């Protein structure tokens, strides 16, 4: 059975035929993209239907987020969001809450809405907007209901007395000097671990985790994605994660596929040598199902978390003189990279600071000297800070970039003022230069670090507007065409799916994202507000209400 989809316009991301008005699909595959009158040879002697439900809409290749974390998202998504930034979630838009009073009002509203006794988990608090948090403030909301407020960074949380007694935390055990301020119900650093170990029965309860993955499925669909990359499979626990993903993200009702990229150091943890890793990763390929697939990709880590200012920076470093951190000793990172490089893998390395990038570039140079490879797809993930000289090295070494451009929106203002200064803060996510150099460049959300909304990422990349409304590093802005490439074909190349998706042409899977406005010709400031009418995954329509 053939279906002829007609649209107001089709953006193909195939440079040889950038626009069309119809796409002909058989089952899950595109037979032809172009004009209906050219498709007659396919239609003769075959049954077909003409589908005009998108006749006044724009069809794009299905969006791809090449780097997010379903398992982490599953933990977070069952919580209530109160955030300083806008988050569009399938069950309702989260409007920005930017004052302490508004935060308290929202907590109270959630408290009123919840069934008595049910614990209230809130995520998104940040002192910059929401003022000082503490137990007394939570007690003003409720002394009876357990309330747990998670910081936006995940690195700290607050609990009221009811939550502490629910979790079995005895304040008498806590002495001064610990990373717990029991008076304020504040848990941070290893004190956070103490709290989480005791909250796990609630946070990781199987039905809650399953709910979280169901919500993730909705979020991914709502954002318009038809493919995603899980860029650290095995982050928590390999077996339980793999099983939960198979249960929740496989099946006819799932409107996207997931490329699973294994967390390399977790894979060989517990006494295995890095050199054993490629064979272990290879064995995972036999678990591949229709929507969930491993490939010869591996994820490794260089320097610390961007949101915590632990990115490793070259001189002159951070204004306050603190240093970032290495997530692995440089020698260990090199040993892991070598093992997978020699085995022909595509290697994805988490890099946040320009020193982390420099180290990883030095290692890549060494690999090229030892065993030259073409088309190796080595990818710098996150790509917070970089220098123009490093862009040339990335190009020369044949690597590619997957950037979290949202850093610029949320953090460039505060990092300019209290991190590294305006010059470098304004040039984070230097992706205009990457496009100019001809580097394959994509953008991602690292959800839940940023909203899983490709149109929002596209909007940041095109406007480079931060939350304060300032345009940061205007020459690094992408064109709308480049930004759309970033979330479609370039993303497909990055996670090894370009042979089946990322653009619309004969032979690829029929993966579409259907929009109400044209993202290439609209006013750039409206990009993130474009409504998504539906996605089509492998020929099947999944409407978005």
């Amino acid at each position, binding site marked *: 059975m053939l279906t002829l989809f007609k649209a107001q316009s089709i953006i193909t991301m195939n440079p040889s035929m950038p626009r069309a008005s119809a796409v002909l699909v058989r089952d899950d595959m595109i037979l032809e993209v172009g004009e209906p009158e050219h498709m007659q040879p396919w239609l003769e002697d075959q049954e077909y239907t003409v589908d005009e439900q998108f006749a006044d809409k724009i069809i794009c290749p299905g969006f791809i987020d090449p780097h997010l974390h379903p398992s982490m998202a599953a933990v977070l998504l069952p919580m209530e969001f109160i955030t300083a930034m806008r988050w569009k979630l399938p069950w309702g838009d989260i409007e920005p809450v930017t004052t302490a009073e508004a935060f308290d009002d929202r907590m109270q509203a959630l408290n009123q809405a919840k069934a008595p006794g049910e614990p209230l988990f809130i995520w998104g608090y940040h002192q910059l907007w929401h003022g000082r948090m503490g137990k007394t403030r939570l007690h003003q909301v409720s002394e009876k209901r357990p309330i747990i407020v998670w910081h936006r960074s995940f690195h700290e949380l607050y609990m009221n007395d009811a939550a502490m007694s629910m979790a079995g935390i005895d304040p008498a055990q806590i002495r001064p000097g*610990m990373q717990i301020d029991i008076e304020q119900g504040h848990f941070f*650093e*290893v004190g956070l671990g103490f709290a989480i*170990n005791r909250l796990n029965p609630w946070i990781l309860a199987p039905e809650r985790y399953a709910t979280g993955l169901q919500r993730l499925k909705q979020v991914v669909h709502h954002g318009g994605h038809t493919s995603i990359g899980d860029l650290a499979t095995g982050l928590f626990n390999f077996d339980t994660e793999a099983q939960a993903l198979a249960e929740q993200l496989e099946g006819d009702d799932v409107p996207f596929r997931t490329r699973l990229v294994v967390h390399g150091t977790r894979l060989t943890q517990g*006494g295995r040598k890095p050199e054993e890793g490629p064979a272990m990763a290879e064995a995972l390929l036999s678990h591949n199902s229709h929507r969930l697939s491993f490939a010869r990709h591996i994820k490794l880590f260089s320097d610390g978390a961007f949101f915590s200012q632990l990115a490793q920076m070259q001189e002159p470093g951070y204004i306050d003189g603190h240093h970032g951190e290495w997530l692995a000793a440089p020698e260990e990172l090199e040993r892991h990279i070598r093992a997978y490089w020699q085995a022909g893998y595509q290697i994805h390395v988490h890099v946040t600071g320009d020193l982390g990038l420099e180290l990883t570039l030095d290692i890549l140079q060494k690999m090229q000297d030892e065993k030259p490879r073409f088309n190796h797809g080595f990818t710098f993930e996150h790509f917070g800070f970089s220098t123009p000289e490093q862009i040339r090295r990335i190009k020369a070494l044949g690597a590619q970039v997957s950037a979290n451009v949202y850093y610029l929106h949320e953090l460039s203002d505060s990092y300019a003022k209290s991190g590294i200064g305006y010059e470098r803060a304004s040039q984070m996510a230097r992706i205009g230069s990457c496009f100019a150099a001809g580097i394959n460049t994509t953008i991602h959300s690292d959800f839940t670090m940023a909203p899983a909304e490709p149109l929002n990422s596209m909007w940041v990349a095109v406007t480079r507007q931060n939350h304060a409304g300032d345009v940061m590093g205007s020459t690094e802005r992408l064109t709308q065409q480049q930004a759309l490439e970033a979330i479609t074909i370039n993303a497909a190349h990055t996670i090894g799916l370009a042979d089946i998706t990322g653009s619309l042409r004969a032979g690829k899977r029929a993966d579409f994202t259907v929009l109400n406005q044209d993202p290439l010709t609209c006013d750039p400031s409206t990009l993130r507000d474009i409504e998504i009418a539906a996605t089509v995954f492998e020929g099947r329509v999944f409407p978005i209400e």
Partner: protein
Amino acid sequence: MSTGSASSRIKPITLIGGYLGAGKTTLINRLLSQPEVPAGTAVLVNDFGDINVDESLIRSDSHNGTIIGLSNGCICCSISDDLSQALDQLNTLPIAQVILETSGVAEPARVWQHCHYPGFSPKAIVAVVDAANYHQRSQDKYVGPLVKSQTAQADLLVVSKIELNSCFQLDSLTPQLTNRDTKLFETILGWQRNGAQGAYESSAPLLPIFSAQTWYQDSPISRDSIEASLTALDSSVQRIKGWIETEAGVMQVDKVGSSLSIKPLKHHTKPRVLGLVFIFHVDPNTDSQNNPLTGWALAKTAS
């Protein structure tokens, strides 16, 4: 939820820090096989992969994935990225003290903060310094600042691989020991940061306590008088090391046991700091503040 009913005592944690390859694991492997390691010592390592516990020491049936029980009554536990989980797990076991191997890229001072955990308290930071590679690593573009901070934050330095570089000198007055020191393991296990003792006072001392004191020189002194005053010190002083300025130039001072050596410094560069560090043994049955240097002649001249 376990909240540590097995032992209500606060358990001290000795941190073993140092960069990747410095010799932390070798030190811990050797330490685990020492007769003086008391039963009830828990060793926390990053990954069992590197720990080479003698098979004969492992109690069969005791390996549950993250914990290995040893026949000498010690246990070995892997951290796998989450110190809080490992400590919560240890809190349910009858242990008396913890040796924690930090990750090679950890700043020990940060891990020290993490050891202020319910049921535990940090006791000392011991950093392993690799005589063969330290100087090169401390200048490294990527890890130089980290490697320097690891030694700067330590209470006690253990210089490893001294046989590969016998003239290794670390320009620092932090107390230093090498593999050649007798009582190395006793000293490591007994080391206690000044002021740290109050935190776990409910725990009876497990071993003799070792401590150190640093004396900074502010004006030149005659060679004879320093020699006389050092010779007169109490025998509880195990080790003295440092640099002092005399009328005859800068001297390097080394006292191991009863043999004292004071000789002109051969290096052409003058050390950044002048002074002496004393490592001494404190009788736990007496006031721990009462150290053998209190009555030392030169202590009075120190500011």
